[in-house]
């Protein structure tokens, strides 16, 4: 028999992951949302703070939202101090996560290139690289010939519509296998005695003054000492129940995957001007993200013209992709905020914490925000890494405007 194709399969999952418990009547902490952020928060509550009387409520299946739908890019080369701080803290955790979780999450630090196609792209890129260096984030500016060395298949010829003028490069950036990450956190949380409750949709909250006393669900009312909302695109559905206004809008964000291909793409490439971001995942499939659909949508699907435009950009920048095949398309629901930065921390309710607005940054922030949110819950004080991302920055005007500064999405 021929040997198996190297790389074309994945490590086995463990023989046991978690059990499906019946919800108890009461928990010290109830985390709403069984995605990456909720599960990571549960893990660090137990690991760092010994808080284990915790329930994670998931309306569907664990890790089934954006966690299962994103393109798994992990990087920390954001412009502003506040952003690079949380994402770099997260990246450092990623670097030890396989060990921490005892799970083969396939974190692969293959680097990320953010291409520049216009003189303004170049200015913005240099600005970001210089800021990253001063913040201790690995970053460099590459000229086109250096870009070609890092990723030979990028079209660096000067006669294309928007020639590559250079790129920022973060060598420590990379990708991981999203399901493995979610399940790694879930298994650890389960082992710590935390209840992971699936098919449990929150239908309302019982409140007394400025406190939430219980969470009403399709599986009964659950009393809660502290509540953390980690519902990403569905955050507004929950905050509407609480009468809290949150400045997030939920949009479809599509992604797609090709068939398995021999290794051709050694890194991660992102381009804003020619909108494309692509990596070649562990089995050999090309994983790509498309643009955010313009309108609000909870449908986990988008319009196909967005995909077509994405393909045009992909073939323009990577001519060798011409006959790769689109195998599957899907969409997540990204919760975007006015300044393209997250909203984490206190709410008008003393015992309710908010975690949303991550837009396209949610996956890469998973361990970082889990760590910080667990700390915030445990101490009743925002962790330094999330402190800047308050809800009331929109009132004071102290935004952390990542798209204003041409931050690279995703």
């Amino acid at each position: 028999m021929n040997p198996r194709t190297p790389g074309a399969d994945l490590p086995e999952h463990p023989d046991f992951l978690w059990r499906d418990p019946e919800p108890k009547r009461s928990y010290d902490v109830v985390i709403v949302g069984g995605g990456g952020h909720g599960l990571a928060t549960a893990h660090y509550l137990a690991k760092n703070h010994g808080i284990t009387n915790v329930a994670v409520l998931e309306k569907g299946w664990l890790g089934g939202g954006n966690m299962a739908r994103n393109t798994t890019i992990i990087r920390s080369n954001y412009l502003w101090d506040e952003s690079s701080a949380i994402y770099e803290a997260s990246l450092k955790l990623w670097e030890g996560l396989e060990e921490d979780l005892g799970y083969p999450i396939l974190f692969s630090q293959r680097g990320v290139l953010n291409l520049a196609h216009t003189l303004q792209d170049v200015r913005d890129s240099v600005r970001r690289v210089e800021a990253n260096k001063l913040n201790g984030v690995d970053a460099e500016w590459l000229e086109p010939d250096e870009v070609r060395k890092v990723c030979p298949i990028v079209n660096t010829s000067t006669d294309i519509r928007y020639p590559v003028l250079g790129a920022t490069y973060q060598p420590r950036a990379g990708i991981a296998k999203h399901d493995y990450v979610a399940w790694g956190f879930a298994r650890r949380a389960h082992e710590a005695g935390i209840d992971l409750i699936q098919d449990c949709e929150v239908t309302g909250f019982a409140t007394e003054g400025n406190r939430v006393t219980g969470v009403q669900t399709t599986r009964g009312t659950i009393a809660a000492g502290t509540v953390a909302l980690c519902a990403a695109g569905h955050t507004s559905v929950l905050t509407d129940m609480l009468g809290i206004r949150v400045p997030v809008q939920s949009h479809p964000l599509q992604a797609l995957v090709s068939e398995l291909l021999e290794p051709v793409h050694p890194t991660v490439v992102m381009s804003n001007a020619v909108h494309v971001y692509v990596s070649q995942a562990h089995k050999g499939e090309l994983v790509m993200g498309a643009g955010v659909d313009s309108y609000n949508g909870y449908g986990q699907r988008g319009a196909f013209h967005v995909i077509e435009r994405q393909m045009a950009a992909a073939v323009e920048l990577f001519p060798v992709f011409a006959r790769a095949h689109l195998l599957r398309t899907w969409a997540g629901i990204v919760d975007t905020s006015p300044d393209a930065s997250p909203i984490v921390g206190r709410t008008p309710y003393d015992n309710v914490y908010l975690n949303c607005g991550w837009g396209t940054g949610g996956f890469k922030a998973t361990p970082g925000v889990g760590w910080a949110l667990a700390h915030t819950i445990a101490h009743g004080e925002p962790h330094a890494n999330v402190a800047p991302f308050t809800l009331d920055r929109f009132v004071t005007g102290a935004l952390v405007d990542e798209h204003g500064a041409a931050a690279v999405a995703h």
Partner: protein
Amino acid sequence: MTSPFRTAEGGRIDRGTTLEFTFDGQTHTGHPGDTLASALLASGRHQVATSVKLGRPRGIAAAWAEDPGGLVQIEEPFPEPMLLATTVELHDGLVAHGLPGQGRLAEISDSARYDAVHHHVDVLVVGAGPAGLTAALTAARSGARVALVDEQSEAGGSLLGGTDRLDDAPALEWVAAAVAELAGHPEVLHLQRTTAFGSYDDGFVLALERRTDHLGTAAPRHVSRQRVWRLRARSVVVATGAHERPVVFADNDRPGTMLAGAARTFLHRYGVLPGRQAVVFTTNDSAYDAALDLHRAGVAVEAVVDARPAGSPRREECERAGIRVLSGAVVTATQGVERVTHALVAPFVDGQVGAGSAIACDLLLVSGGWNPAVHLFSQARGRLRYDEALGAFLPAEELDRLSVTGAAAGVLDLAGCLADGQRVARAALTALAVAPPGEDRLPTAPEPVVPAAPLVLWRVPDTSGADGNTSFVDLQRDATVADIARAVGAGLRSIEHIKRYTTIGTAHDQGKTSGVLASGITAELLGVPVQATGTTTFRPPYTPVAFAALAGRDRGRLFDPERVTSLHDWHVAAGAVFEDVGQWKRPRHYPRPGEDMETAVLRECAAARTGVGILDGSTLGKIDVQGPDAAVLLDRLYTNMMSSLKVGSVRYGVMCGVDGMVIDDGTVLRLAEDRFLLLTTTGGAAKVLDWMEEWAQTEWPDLRVHCTSVTEQWNTFPVVGPRSRDVIGALFPQVDVANEAFPFMTWRDTALDGVPVRLARISFSGELAFEVYVNPWYGVAVWERLLEAGRPYGITPYGTETMHVLRAEKGYPIIGQDTDGTVTPHDLGMAWAVSKKKPDFVGKRSFARQANQDPLRKQLVGLLPVDRRTVLPEGSQIVELHPDGQLPPPPVPMLGHVTSSYRSAELARPFALALVKGGRSRIGDTVHVPVNGTLVPAEVTGSVLVDPEGARRDG
């Protein structure tokens, strides 16, 4: 090589022509009409590849897109990864090989053409089988606009693989007549080799037409290889048939194991015997046709193994033919190495497997029932229900504009499909208020033998001792019953988790045969109804589509429009180096032979500062604003007062978003009491017009004002420099260009040879300057006249780079370069442009927010590198002065960044503009700018470095 398994006659191949192709390095032959798979089978080859994970031999198991076995890599005529041998039409010179797992992309770029076409119809029928053809005929006969698309090379669907008869003649004669009739209807579009791969809202269906693939190297290059049809139908009829489902048992992946229906297709359509000695294992009646047909074709059918205790009414037929029928029995495993040699058959009573025996065979046909191809229905968000009797998922609801018919709707007999296709088409027409045709006769199909109820059997209990580790559910992923059992044992309940744990359904075929099996087996293991387990979501595309096909013609030059001014050809001829500004191509500089950009720009700057230069500023956005309330609208949208501007005068203005951040700036010419001409930034033109219209339409509909884009209506040529007055004076003698007669920030209308020209004293450089506005019809002519008039003064065309240097020396910001969406007019030092008089304007309220009062807001200032040599890279960050010249360890606090930086001919040193925290209060300070590892000291200055007193603008 010969084709020993080719039948003597029959099939829909052109035996008169022989094609040569190469597979795994071996040369084979076939005929037009063959697929790569049928040609390989004809040569006796079943194994195509080895499996991705376990390296087990895998062969052709089906006849079309549902085949989980036969993945190939195409090498010639052009490398293409991972196609199914069953869907590759054979052509001369085809070179391919089996694919163990990963496909290979060509190193060279694909020169084939691809395109997309929009097409609108009343009724779109997907699938040209019996139901689809009938539906298409009914729709066509009503005179409606119809499209019929089918993925195969010819119409007929399941009829191509059978011996059915209609109107007492071979059914394919009816197919031919139907196709001919459709061709006669002018409003019918009939496309074969066209796969509907995506179904979206409002009757939008995407289909991929493979136009030239089957022609191989003979494909004409000016015709697109593949075409995406963007079909917009008022009503969609899905007649996509059904996929036969296997039953899972030990070593069910061994080559020679094939779906029963596929064997019939290979026999009848391609004239190929898939084996010599067959065992047929079934849970339903349909496989009996395969047994009988193969028997008639000379295959020794050793046994029909029917899992149903009562067997089938067709048993007698088989026994008359001398075929042994074992009812209440199953195939438990296969034997063989690279090809089936034996099927292990055992009695099957109450779900228990008894002692078995081996039956020799080189072909094992399997039928576990049929899965309706509900993909397009499900993609359109139709709900599915599990049908206990069929053991399959069926449409559970009627969708607006989309209906399902025939086998796709669970109708599995020919007469039923014909009637259903007609019924659905007539219903669709009625819903569209189109009168269904009067004359719409259906062909008569023979009465079908009433079939016995099928048995729903997902898997045969594994008695091989392998514990389900060789009972394959998803062959492409090497995923087995044991894997599902492990997933369930791990605590997983959701089919989505099971899919991710086992990777079932994630491969090339996206679970066409494995999806429902996985649901069934999972439900069994969990002890829940299949309905509760459900399926994973069906997502587009139905079958894989090449990236290039989706990119279509939006590649190369057509990837994104290139916008140019009427002078573009002149710029090219003048040797300009261009810069992309939005979609515009703008000359960045005009190097002379031997000049690099730096020298060219220094020369161009010197000309503008000491003599005269000329710029093509035509890309600036221009908006004509008219109406009695025009001034009111401008007062509300600009931070400064525009209503007080006098007719004949010009004013610079700034616009902010509601958040108080600068979004655009430019000059405003008041043409009349009720008319203004606005100039915007090049990149901001569309945005500003949209912005103005949005406010005017949605917020202040009472205002009597109209905005019209006139960006391309006017060429704009700034003539800049101390000698500009001489040039303008010379070309327009009728205009009094004296400062008193024609002061700064005013405009005058004049004409040149009868062509109206507008002159405006606007300066973006601080120098004496005149902007010349003219209809672009005459742009080149006027530009050349200006050059002519300027020759005595050495008039020098300059580009955006010089424009930037000149404006930066004067501290004029470029919105989007010196601002980033977080900058207010005050931050730019433009409080003077923010009206104190106006009660309100868009953005004003935000200025009062706490963060806007912060003394440490970033402000625009100048930076002068102390060494007078270093050109600070734009984007550089600024830090406090570190006297020891060493940076402390990170994080190092940052003060701001360099937004613009140039070498100045005028200052004879480099300079920069920067946004610096509390910048204006730091003027005079020295800060550090890290540049490639060294700290460059720079002095913070005011932002206006040249002619701060503004003495030059009047010449």
